[in-house]
Every structure is written in C-alpha cells, then in structure tokens.
C-alpha cells in the first residue's frame, strides 16, 4: 500500500503494479482506480445538462438525527415539555421562523426552502435518507454517477467528506461507484483520494496539510520515474494521473483559501468540510456528501440526553457549528455565482420526539421531521408542508423518502417522469412539485 508521508518503496523501482493498483483500494469498499476508470470509459456519456453548468449537490447529513423542534420547525406555543428551553426567531423571510440557535442561518432563509412534513418509517438506519430507501442501498451520488456518467471536468464525480460510518456508498451498484473519501479536511486525519496519511505526521493541522501535499508531489515524482507505471494499461495510468493531477490536488488544498474565509466557515471539522465541498463542486465534482462526524460527542446529533443531560449539545456545539458553516456556505456559493447550479440539502436520518424525555433530551422520531433545501432552482424563501402543533406528524403534504429522492434526482437533472433508469431507485414516486 502506498502511503503519503512514508512511502513503502525504498526506491522508485520497487513500486510494483500491485501497489499502484492498491493505491485505489482505500475507498469505502475497496474499489480500485483501474476499475473505476474502466467504468468511466464504458459509462461516459454527455450530461443532459451539458448546456451551461451541470447541477451539483452538497448533501449535508447531520448524523444522529437533528431535532426539528430546535432547528427548522420550532413550536413556541407548545407546552414546556414539548417546546424545549430555546426560543424561536424571525428570519429574513416574513412568516418563516426557525430556532434561536441558528441566528446566522435566519438571515439566509431567502435562499432556502424548508420541508416540514418529511416522514419515514425507519427509526434507526441512516441509509434510508441517504439512499432514498431503494433496494440498491446506493447513495444518491453513486446513482447519479451511474446514470450521468463522468463529467469532463476530470474531478471525481462523487466525494464523501467526513467519517464513513454506516453510511452508504455505491450499494449494489458496485464499488466502481463508491465516493472518494476525505475523512477529515481539517488536517488531523486527512485521507486524500485513496491515499492514507500516516498518523505520525505533525499534530499541527497546517503542518499536516503541507505534509500531505508534499507527499503527493513525492509520489507523483516517484511514479513518473517508475518503469512499472509506463507499462500499465491506459486505465491505470489515467487513474494515477487523476489522483496526482494539479486540478485535483488544488481542489483538495484548503490552504489555497484565504484564511479569513476559512475562519468564517468555522474552525470545526464541519466548517472546513463545507468549504472543501464548495471547492469540490466548483472544480466539477457532481455530488459531495458531508457526514457530520460522530466522534467524540456520542453520535453527533443523537441528543437522547443519555450521555450528557438535556439538549445542551444542541446549544453548544452542534447548532453553532451548523449555523456558522451552513450560512457561510450559502453566502459563499451565492457570491461565486454557484448557488443557482448547486443544490444544498440538509437533513438527518429522522427528527426527534416532540416530548422531552427524563434525561432532558429527545429520542428518535421518523414520523415527522424537516429537510432544508437551497439552490439549484429550489423556490427560495418558502415552506413546504407543515407539521402538527407539536411537531409529531405531518399536518399536510406528507413527503415520503422515495418522493424526497425523486425530488433530489429531478433537481439534479434526471427526468424522473421519462427516464426508465431511475425507476429502480425511486419506484413510482414523483418529485415534490412545490420544490421543482
């Protein structure tokens, strides 16, 4: 296995074909880059959105299941055991209010649509909302790669930022469609596409990034000097070129961002994941899924109150980090002219119980929860559907998971009415008309 920072080869000539093949083997399920590139050769087809910029997606998954009552669907008039300890604030869209723990996002509601009547039946698995509950268990990014092929940008079409956890990759579509992984963009455990960074690199995050990028340069020089590379077939060579291309290298290099902008996104892993996602879609990656990391605070947004009491984690650090990272992302996309072609989706596995439990927290609740959309033509400044006065069940316009999936695919350029290839992934579900 080739590692950045500590190459296993003692000299360039010792790099074997097996090792180079296995460079591509650090994806979610061991995809090799050669297979991936061969698939690219087979599947490549002009994107139906070849006119203008192809729509892309930043899918923010709040692992653990965020409370909709503390975020996008507060109930200020409910009894105290439902309302919770936090208030409700106005946004810059008259008539839309959200939780007071998201004050920065409240000033960007004119870019967003909130779906408040999302409903699911799955109380535990994260794969449902990230795969549309299809039997393939393939995430949206994998499906889009299969259907739309690879873009001419040369960027990986599907990237995953954050820990993999139990989240789906390509499912039954095959490892070819797995995302490239970036475990931690902040530099503590950076895993650039299919490269593993040794743990022995400097603890300082900036030094880690320098080490990482320097390592890529060393590998590139090593490979290009290696006779074995020259003997490989085209696919493998192209895989090597992809991973060591200046464009890919630059896209993953957060040091190219101004310090003040990186600061505005927030110094947390989530904040830096957001800015990395922006860079990736800007460079041509079609689908970036950000997984809110589960470490260390007991499964992220899973605020049962069974680790530390109450909803304290919502107050610090969960909502502040989301607020800062997401609001800056929306603003940054808009200022760069990318928001109209970039769909931003924010959701978790499910919502949380309307009634606060004895630990002061809330438990899993899939029956009604919220999803935030922004960009890519989504009608901004709107509410879609509503929950009842306790946030327990949809009061109107319930949206199922397949309908959510159909909406997402439609917004990303798949003709969900006419394209038969989408049927295995959404069944007969139709997109939410109010969002497309």
């Amino acid at each position, binding site marked *: 296995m080739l590692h950045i920072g500590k190459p296993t080869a003692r000299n360039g000539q010792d790099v074997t074909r097996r090792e180079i093949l296995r460079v591509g083997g650090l994806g979610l399920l061991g995809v090799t880059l050669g297979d991936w590139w061969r698939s690219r050769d087979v599947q490549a087809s002009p994107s139906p959105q070849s006119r203008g910029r192809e729509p892309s997606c930043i899918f923010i998954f709040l692992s653990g299941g965020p409370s909709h009552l503390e975020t996008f669907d507060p109930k200020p008039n409910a009894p105290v055991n439902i309302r919770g300890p936090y208030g*409700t604030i106005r946004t810059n869209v008259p008539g839309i209010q959200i939780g007071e723990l998201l004050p920065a996002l409240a000033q960007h509601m004119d870019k967003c649509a909130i779906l408040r009547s999302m409903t699911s039946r799955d109380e535990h698995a994260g794969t449902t909302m990230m795969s549309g509950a299809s039997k393939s268990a393939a995430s949206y990014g994998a499906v889009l790669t299969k259907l739309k092929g690879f873009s001419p940008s040369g960027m990986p079409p599907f990237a995953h930022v954050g820990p993999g956890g139990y989240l789906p990759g390509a499912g039954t579509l095959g490892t070819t469609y797995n995302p490239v992984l970036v475990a931690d963009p902040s530099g503590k455990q950076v895993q650039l596409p299919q490269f593993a960074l040794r743990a022995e690199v400097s603890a300082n995050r900036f030094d880690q990034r320098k080490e990482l990028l320097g390592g890529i340069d060393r590998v590139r020089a090593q490979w290009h000097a290696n006779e074995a590379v020259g003997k490989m077939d085209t696919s493998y060579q192209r895989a090597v070129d992809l991973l060591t291309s200046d464009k890919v290298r630059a896209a993953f290099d957060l040091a190219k961002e101004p310090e003040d902008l990186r*600061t505005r996104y927030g110094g947390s892993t989530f904040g830096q994941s957001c800015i990395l996602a922006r860079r990736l879609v800007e460079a041509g990656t079609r689908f970036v899924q950000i997984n809110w990391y589960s470490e260390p605070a007991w499964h992220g947004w899973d605020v049962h109150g069974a680790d530390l009491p109450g909803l304290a984690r919502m107050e610090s*650090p969960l909502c502040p980090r989301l607020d800062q990272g997401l609001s800056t992302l929306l603003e940054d996309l808009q200022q760069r002219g990318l928001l109209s072609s970039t769909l931003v989706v924010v959701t978790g596995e499910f919502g949380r119980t309307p009634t606060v439990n004895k630990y002061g927290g809330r438990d899993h609740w899939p029956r009604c929860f919220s999803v935030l959309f922004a960009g890519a033509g989504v009608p901004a400044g709107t509410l879609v559907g509503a929950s009842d006065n306790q946030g327990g069940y949809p009061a109107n316009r319930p949206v199922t998971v397949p309908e959510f999936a159909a909406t997402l695919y439609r917004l990303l350029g798949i003709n969900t009415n006419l394209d038969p290839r989408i049927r295995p992934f959404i069944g007969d579900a139709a997109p939410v008309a109010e969002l497309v």
Partner: protein
Amino acid sequence: MCPLPAPCRWLLFVVPFCVFCGYSLHAPAQTVPASRLLIAFGSYRDRPKHPNIFFYEHDGSGSGKIVGKVGTERNIASAEGHPSLSQDGRFCAFTFELENNTGRIYFWDRKEQKLVEHPALNNSPNAQMGPSLSSDGNLIAFSALNRPGASGQGWHVFLYDRGARKTVELPGLNSQTFEDRLPALSSDGRWLAFTSNRKGGVGLTDIYLYDRRESKLLSLPRMNSRHMDAEPSLSADGNLIAFASDRPGGRGGRDIYLFDRAADKFLALPGLNSPAHEYSPSLSPDGRFLAFVSERLGGEGERDIYLYDRQAQKLLPTPGLNSKTEDFDPCVISTTERALP
C-alpha cells in the same frame, strides 16, 4: 588605598553582609503577588466518547500543567462535564451521567481523592446538571428537570446546602411555565445568575440575577439583548457578569461579554473574541482571569480552552491544556496562596 586601618578592614565584608541580611528580612512584600490558577474542565482526551474532568494549574503568566483528574471509574460508559471549584480548589462539583441513566451532581474532594455522597442532592428520578459552588463549597446551585417539588415542568434552578443536607428555598426565582437553567453562584452565595427563556425579558433567552438576601429577581435590561444571552459567570462579589451572546456587533458567531453592574456598562475585552464561536466563559472570583471555549482555526482540537488576563489584556499561553480532541466547560479560580490541594 583602603581608608580603613588594617584591624577594621573586615568591616568591609561584614557590614555589607549584615545590611544585606537586614534588607532580606525586612524588605517589603512583593506588591503584586503572583497568581496561581486552577482550571477544571471537561475533555475527551482519555476516552473518545466519554468525557472526564481534568485539573490544570497555571502560574498566571505562561506556564501550566495538568495536575490531576476526577478519579471516577474509567471502564464504564459515563460522561462528566460542567465542573465548578471551591475557592481553595479542594472541592469540585460536576455533572456525571452513566450512559442511559439520568444526570447527577457529583462532588469530588481533591485532597482526599474521593467522591462525597449527597443523597438528598440527587433525590430526583430525572436529569440534573450544571452545578455552581460557593467559595467555601457549601452551597451548590444546579439545574434540574422536573425535580419533585418544582413549581412547574421543565428545567429549573435549585440550591443545595451541603452542611444542612437539604435544598434551600429560592422564592420568586423559578418560573412556572418556562425554563431556568445554567446557574452561577457568587462566592458568598448571595447572588445567583441564571439563563431563562421566560417571557418579558429583553430577548428570547436572557440572563437574570437573583439576590438571595432580598429574595429578589433582577432583570438586567442594559445587559441583555434581543438575541441569545446565556452561560453567566460571576465575580466573587457578583458585580461582574461574564456571559456568551450571539448579538450582532461582535467579532462573529458567539462572543464573550463582560458587564459591570455597578458601573452599568460593558467592559472591553480586547483580543479575546474572534470570528469563530466563543462561549462557556468562566470568570475567576477576583475578576481578573477569564477562561472560555473557542473554536477558532489553529487550535489543538475541535474545541479548545483559552485563558485571558484582563489586567494584561491578552491571552495567556496555556501549554499542555488543550488536546487534539475536545476540551470544554472550563472553571477557573485564582489564588495567591503557594499551594493548591
């Protein structure tokens, strides 16, 4: 040529020596005694999913080290947070929760290295958290959810007297239909600041101050804003209040503010806040030092603890305090005594 005759020349050595000794014995005391700080805080450094309480000693200038931790079991799934120290640094109250059990207030004796039980303190089937100690460690203010005997549902503030082994009445403090939490007790136990979302405040979430001597609630309209103001921390006399707020006009995100009640104005904290989030302030009883959490770039981990000297108006180095994981919920005390337990 020495002016003294030979038999007297020994005086050239003895006299200065005597003068020196006299000076040493009778020299005035150092005008600015060095501060010694003790910071209790939560950290995931030992266990990725289960935080524990650690203690850090700082010289008030630029040196410090970890000096211990709460000695609870490490082979169980439990979480600790919200530590609060007595003025002598001997006692530490904190939130303890065994996984899938309700939160409890625990009391650690740093000198004896043992937990001190208070059955009446935790006499509730529901969650309790966020203790704040008086300087002598006798009074513990804390938040409790649906505690038996409370005036209404939800979170409310309570006060426990360790010596009397019972809760102390706080007439007029808690609301009935809203929630009151995150209490901070002044050193003498007279003043109790807390966060509440009750109606009638300046904003949705405001800080209130309760005078136990007068049994009177103060609303602090010049301090609170229309935005979220929370996590109060008091100076020893209750005059200074440090807190976190997301009001506009700060450096960005949440910022730390310091309010002087007697002067009825905010005190500047140059160089403390950043465009990142700052929160969980802890004011030393003498009001000089502020420990707080920040998520700024360049830190060691996701959350780091910083120490600010109001006298020097700058952040102080804190070598060894932060880890690569998350460090949070600081509580800082200062003393001029030579040793802390």
